[in-house]
């Protein structure tokens, strides 16, 4: 075996021990579930900042929402659409959120935006408004 390869394997084995310890200590496997297709994490959405059109899919009035978010939900779909289209442009990336993704409101609104209005791209905020606030 060439010495370079032998040394490389030795280094890889040396690195394995602290990596295993680090994994055992650090990773909370369920704390951050993987992204489903069409989802975006808050940190990534923050990066997109100016080109994001936030859509609040929570029905009813909300005292707190993401700044400049447009309210659009399936219950008040028709009445809220004009406000959505006033804010939307083709350059915008739409990110829909609800409280914490448990209601499925954001996924429903995102699906309707994609399927009925053919808007693209549309993302659902991973973890919803609660994740954004953390």
């Amino acid at each position, binding site marked *: 075996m060439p*010495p*370079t*390869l*032998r*040394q*490389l*394997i*030795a*280094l*890889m084995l*040396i*690195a*394995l021990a*602290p*990596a*295993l310890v*680090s*994994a055992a200590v*650090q*990773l*909370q*496997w369920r*704390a*951050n579930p*993987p*992204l489903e297709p069409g989802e975006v*994490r808050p*940190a*990534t959405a*923050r*990066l*997109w900042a100016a080109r994001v059109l936030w859509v609040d899919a929570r029905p009813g009035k909300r005292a707190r929402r993401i700044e400049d978010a447009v309210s659009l939900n399936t219950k008040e779909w028709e009445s809220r659409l004009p406000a959505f289209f006033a804010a939307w442009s083709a350059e915008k990336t739409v990110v829909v959120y609800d409280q914490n993704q448990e209601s499925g409101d954001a996924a429903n609104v995102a699906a309707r935006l994609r399927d009925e209005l053919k808007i693209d791209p549309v993302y659902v905020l991973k973890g919803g408004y609660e994740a954004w606030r953390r």
Partner: protein
Amino acid sequence: MASIILRWAIGLLFLCAGLLKASDAQQFAMDVQNYELTSWTFSILIAVYLPWLEIVSGIALIARRLYSGALAASTVMTAAFLAAILSAWWRDLDIACGCFGPEINHTNYPLHIIGNTLLLLALAFLKITERRSNLQPAQPGIS
């Protein structure tokens, strides 16, 4: 002299990059997944292991132990990162690079490509100087 400075600089670079990422493996896993090249499970495996390989390689470069292997590991890691950056740029992804742990900034693709290409050239230079020093005959002792 130039090779010593380069060896230390690259060693410290890998050491720092590894330490910053190893301190928050979960965040690094998300950074890896943002490249959309790996599954979540594979992103976690990379996030757990890669920083430590960087740390070990950095220390090996500085200490000049397992030197040839450290050069090979550093070269492979840099080349892989360069390929990932090129791929992300090609797909017009707007993500944080994750090079030095958690960052909330947009990746400057041209800057990263230039930086990593220079790093690859520096590693190649170190490999060449290592080969030359291995080929040189031993100095006869003075009695």
